[in-house]
């Protein structure tokens, strides 16, 4: 049944009207009033379908028998001496019968007196929800201005401006209004800064022509409360995709938590929108606003700003706490929190440094395709700083100053992982390392370096060797390496325990190189470059050398020197040669008579310097110092000798 039939039935009796109202009370209708030169048709809509048309016309066109005229089955015309008076009565009658959520008036500017229409709509009860004015092409500036000024007299209604024509010189203020502009190519940054509306939606048909930088300027100005304080919702559409970084540049925001997600649900505009996936920003006046930058599949972009006005941020005045409480707060912070706090001001940096000096923080660095700094506190709390290569496109990243480097993009992988993005990874590593090493009582525990094409290895080695602090445990991964860099690594005095898998060139030699007491515990996997001369003096405590190119005689000579006690620091050495034709007799010549030597079959562990060796089936040899050392021979499955381990003295075996 159409709306006209329903209306006519309601006229039959009050009982019928009551029944009808009861029946349709759960249905949401929309009422649309279209005003043009001749008449005001009222259209009742349900789900975008026209259910009926009700016209209001002047008495001149009334037929002699009735004040109502039935046109077709879904049209009804009312007549009156005053069209607006008739329209008011019709509006009230229809709303009495049909529950209408949306009550829209659409007026064309050609109707002579828009002012009169607006005055009329302001008298309606219940109020209209939307008022649309359609301005025709080729209007004069005066007329355009007249229409706009008239619109500013509307109260509590969404004002829709549908006009391809515009005059940017016309002063538009829209103080406290809800203003929706379909063709918005005329809207400039100056307009936005001047508008004083509550809801401002621009460009649903034709977008604004503003640049990302201008949008950024507007956002910054809004957040600083230097624009209208009325704005609650804004949608700003552009006919292109936006660069999110440019739009959000310099803003301080956080992601919207699930519990903070809200629907607009007010004024009937942007009703499908929420702040989900948006950014939460604290404004200067401590109101919270939410910003979304959306690039749509159709090539358009939209900037959304929501401010519910009821969310106010209340800061915690940290620096006004008593000193003891401030100390408690900072000491209770996780490492990442304390680090970030230290970047806020020199005073806070001083506090963090002072309060954290009593704790020992272990530092572990992994260098692979990117650089990871792991900080580990004694209570096992952990935080990671990732120094990543700056990708070509980096969206929605905040920026901050780290050391001497400004505007470094960063994000939090989770609350314990801070990822910073650098054009030069080594510069990033240097800045971050400087910051954390100055701030915390750092104990540089572990360094793992794996050669990777994404990082300039020379710079890595320069940086590592340039840090110039003792590192407890260093691991260089597999791969060939430039001889100069290899030389830099083996000559570093800062690597206490070091495992080097790297391979220098076949011809690499370093005649001056000696294992000093700085090379406490070293494991060299590709030791083909080591000569007897390199082993003529050893200050190390533990050495494992693999793939050595020594002859039997050279090994023998070295072992003979060893048992003289020439290397007082040395407690364990393992020598593995690059061949399997080693003569056990030749290398032990003059050291012990293997045929008659007693084999010690006990399992004696060597648990020092992190090693857990089980020395078994070894031969004990008396040294010139009077101490005894143990020789352990390594054979393959065929009984061929691969190498030898010597533990000196064997009192280190338990």
């Amino acid at each position, binding site marked *: 049944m159409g709306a006209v039939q329903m209306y006519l039935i309601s006229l039959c009796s009050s009982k019928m009207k009551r029944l009808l109202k009861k029946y349709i009370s759960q249905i949401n209708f929309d009422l649309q009033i279209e005003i043009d030169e001749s008449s005001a048709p009222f259209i009742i809509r349900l789900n975008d379908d026209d259910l009926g048309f009700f016209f209001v016309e002047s008495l001149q066109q009334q037929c002699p028998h009735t004040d109502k005229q039935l046109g077709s089955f879904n049209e009804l015309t009312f007549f009156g001496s005053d069209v607006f008076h008739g329209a008011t009565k019709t509006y009230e009658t229809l709303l009495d019968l049909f529950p209408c959520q949306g009550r829209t008036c659409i007026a064309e500017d050609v109707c002579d007196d828009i002012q009169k229409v607006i005055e009329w709509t302001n008298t309606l009860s219940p109020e209209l929800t939307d008022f649309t004015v359609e301005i025709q092409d080729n209007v004069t500036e005066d007329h355009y201005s007249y229409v706009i000024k008239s619109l500013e007299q509307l109260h509590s209604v969404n004002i829709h401006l549908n006009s391809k024509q515009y005059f940017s010189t016309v002063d538009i203020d829209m103080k406290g209004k809800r203003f929706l502009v379909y063709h918005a190519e005329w809207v400039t940054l100056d307009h936005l800064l001047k508008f004083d509306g509550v809801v401002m939606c621009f460009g649903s048909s034709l977008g604004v022509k503003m640049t990302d930088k201008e949008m950024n300027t507007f956002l910054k100005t809004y957040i600083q409360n230097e624009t209208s304080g009325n704005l609650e919702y804004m949608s700003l559409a552009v006919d292109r995709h936006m660069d999110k970084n440019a739009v959000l540049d310099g803003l301080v925001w956080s992601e919207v938590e699930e519990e903070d997600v809200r629907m607009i649900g007010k004024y009937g505009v942007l009703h499908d929108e929420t702040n989900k996936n948006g950014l939460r920003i604290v404004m200067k006046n401590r109101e919270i606003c939410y910003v979304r930058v959306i690039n749509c599949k159709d090539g358009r972009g939209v900037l959304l700003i929501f401010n519910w006005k009821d969310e106010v941020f209340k800061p915690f005045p940290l620096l*006004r706490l008593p000193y003891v409480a401030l100390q408690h707060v900072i000491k209770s912070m996780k490492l990442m929190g304390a680090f970030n706090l230290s970047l806020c001001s020199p005073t806070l940096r001083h506090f963090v440094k002072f309060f954290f000096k009593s704790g020992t923080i272990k530092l572990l660095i992994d260098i692979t395709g990117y650089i990871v700094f792991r900080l580990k506190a004694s209570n096992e709390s952990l935080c990671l700083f990732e120094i990543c290569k700056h990708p070509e496109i980096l969206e929605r990243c905040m920026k901050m100053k780290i050391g001497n480097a400004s505007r470094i993009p960063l994000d939090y992988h989770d609350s314990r992982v801070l990822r910073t993005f650098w054009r030069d990874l080594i510069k990033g590593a240097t800045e971050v390392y400087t910051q954390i090493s100055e701030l915390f009582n750092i104990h540089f525990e572990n360094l793992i370096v794996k050669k990777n094409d994404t990082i300039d290895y020379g710079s890595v080695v320069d940086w590592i060797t340039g840090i110039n602090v003792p590192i407890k445990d260093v691991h260089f991964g597999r791969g060939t390496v430039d001889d100069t860099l290899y030389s830099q690594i083996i000559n570093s005095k800062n690597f206490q325990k070091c495992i080097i898998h790297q391979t220098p060139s076949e011809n690499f030699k370093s005649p001056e190189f000696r294992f000093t007491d700085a090379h406490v515990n070293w494991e060299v996997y590709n030791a083909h470059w080591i000569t007897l001369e390199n082993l003529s003096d050893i200050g190390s405590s533990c050495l494992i050398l693999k793939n050595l190119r020594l002859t039997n005689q050279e090994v023998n000579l070295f072992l003979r020197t060893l048992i003289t006690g020439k290397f007082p620091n040395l407690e364990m050495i393992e020598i593995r040669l690059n061949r399997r034709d080693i003569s056990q007799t030749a290398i032990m010549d003059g050291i012990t008579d293997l045929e008659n030597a007693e084999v010690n079959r006990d399992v004696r562990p060597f648990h020092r310097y992190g090693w857990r060796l089980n020395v078994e089936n070894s031969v004990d040899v008396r040294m010139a110092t009077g101490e005894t050392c143990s020789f352990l021979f390594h054979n393959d499955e065929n009984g061929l000798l691969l190498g030898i381990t010597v533990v000196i003295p064997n009192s280190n075996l338990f």
Partner: protein
Amino acid sequence: MSVENAPVVDVDEAAIPVEKKMYYRFESNDKKEFRVSELAIQQSETLNRLVEAMGYTSEDVENKPAIAIENIDGKTLKLVFQWCEHHKGEAIPVDDGSVPKIVEIPEFDAKLMDIDNGLLFKLIWAADYLNIVQLLNVSCKKVANMAQGKTPAQLRRVYLLPSDEEDEAAKRAAQEAQDPRAREVEEEFEERKRQGGNSFF
């Protein structure tokens, strides 16, 4: 306010031992009165010493005026005594000096501290003033947790921290306020330098 009308901190009756316990009366700076058990008071080193020094008997507690706590308002004191009653009898933790400190916030404490930042600030002040170690620990931990996942710029907002410029300006203002003569001397020195004088004296 009469003793009968004084607001009393909720106490779990079942938890009260059969033998008669002494309940002290305290008054906040806005004249709100609280009755707090002897055992709960032990959580506060300051109050514990105070009542020990006073040496009140049960009769004194009822007959003498409530002990005034001048620096704390009723709303804050209510939270403090609620906390003390809930944690009465618990050992007072000793700081082991580890950094970062590990502090777990129990469910009761988390609910108690589900308050706005202004009141939380007062609660920390009170915990510090009354020397309630564990309340200070948990309340400060709650403030420390606000820093999680925040950038320095965000922390400035969260903790109402001055920017670098504001910090510098405040320092300058403080220096000037502290020693106006020093400023005058400095200005005079600058003036002489501009005039090309080599010696100040």
